[in-house]
């Protein structure tokens, strides 16, 4: 149906972006398809030690899911930063991804988690790493007729943790000026064995910063390692200057947030190890 429509189309899950675009005249879709009632789209399903999150699951439902919070706390805290209580009742993680904002709060956490997006296209279902979805501000690599049906958050080893932090001028109801997500795993000796570092709002799309991950792998996140992490993050930034933040500010704060997020992720990894 979506592929056959020659005009502009929109897929509706929570509607918190689509409705605003329609009202503002930014989008005048000839066809809006509400996919919430398709089987599984509103379910959080355990799978292979991880969780499959249906594309129409609102943020509030993710926040109320104890198992998901315990496994991927950084992903959940990113999703929960999107909008107010009212918006949380509707807005979805998949919609946040598909809206294509470089400042999307859910996306850095998903990239750090190496989440996998399941897409139902005209030719059937396929899986795609989340990092390959954003193409630029307001754009994705999804083709017409593609519907994201779920996002898979994988199982993780013992002693793993993740965290997401953003800078906003206000504490609530704001859009990230800079954001950072870190996911890491610690060995039995407390050294980092694996890490992924993602930055939001400092480039046309979310960035996965391998150099930042390499800066902390093998370390115990001592001051030198954290400084190297921050420097690698700042070096990767290609931000814009706008009323919400300058290039210099975003570049510096990206490193600061990544360093703090890494410390939180490490503490969570220790707690997860203690609990296991």
């Amino acid at each position, binding site marked *: 149906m979506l592929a056959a429509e020659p005009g502009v189309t929109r897929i509706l899950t*929570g509607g918190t972006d689509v*409705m605003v675009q329609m*009202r503002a005249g930014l989008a005048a879709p000839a066809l*809006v398809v509400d996919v919430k009632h398709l089987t599984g789209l509103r379910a959080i399903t355990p799978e292979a030690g991880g969780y499959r999150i249906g594309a129409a699951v609102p943020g509030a439902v993710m926040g109320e899911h104890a198992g998901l919070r315990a496994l991927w706390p950084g992903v959940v805290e990113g999703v929960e930063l999107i909008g*107010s209580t*009212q*918006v949380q*009742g509707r807005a979805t993680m998949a919609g946040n991804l598909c809206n294509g904002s470089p400042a999307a709060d859910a996306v850095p956490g998903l990239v750090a988690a190496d989440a996998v997006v399941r897409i139902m296209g005209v030719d059937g279902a396929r899986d795609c790493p989340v990092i390959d979805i954003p193409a630029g501000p307001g754009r994705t690599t999804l083709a017409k007729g593609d519907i994201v049906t779920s996002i898979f958050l994988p199982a993780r080893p013992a002693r793993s943790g993740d965290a997401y932090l953003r800078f906003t001028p206000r504490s609530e*109801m704001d859009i990230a000026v800079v954001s950072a997500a870190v996911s890491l795993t610690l060995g039995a000796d407390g050294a980092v064995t694996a890490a992924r570092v993602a930055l939001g709002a400092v480039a046309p799309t979310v960035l996965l910063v391998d150099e930042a991950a390499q800066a902390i792998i093998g370390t115990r996140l001592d001051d030198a390692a954290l400084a190297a992490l921050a420097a690698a993050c700042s070096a990767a930034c290609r931000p814009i200057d706008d009323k919400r933040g300058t290039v210099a500010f975003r570049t510096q704060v990206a490193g600061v947030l990544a360093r703090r997020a890494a410390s939180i992720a490490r503490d969570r990894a220790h707690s997860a190890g203690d609990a296991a």
Partner: protein
Amino acid sequence: MKTIQVSTTINGDATEFLCGPDESLLDVLRNRLGLTGVKEGCGTGDCGACSVTLDGRLVCSCLVLGAEAEGAQIGTVEGLAQGDRLHPLQQSFIDHAALQCGICTPGILVAAKALLDRNPDPTDTELRYWLAGNLCRCTGYDKIIHAVQAAARTMRETADAQG
């Protein structure tokens, strides 16, 4: 443009309406069903004046299509009072003068009730975060917080008395 027929339940009453495919639930409630307690502030999900519950979840009705109400349970401020008897939250807002112009009040009442339904004894911090999506340009919020906490106390005492 073809209209869509929708069967829903509003404040406990089975309701049917016709709406345009691009018509918001806010416009349906106000313009087609006469439920003008639901207010339009920003129309973009920022101010919370149009707050209603949709299957028990607090939402902005300006961000919901009327067609999405099919088969759902909608709650608006009109459903709070029982006949002539105001809901404890409504009475408390009057007693504490927690409103001035009043356009944000219905949304705040619906939002506060949604919180107290799941957490009868919130801290001020929990309450302020919960209501962060309900903007008020008159009161400075303090009286709203006092009014909700007073109503919460009344509701807890009533619940205790009823055992």
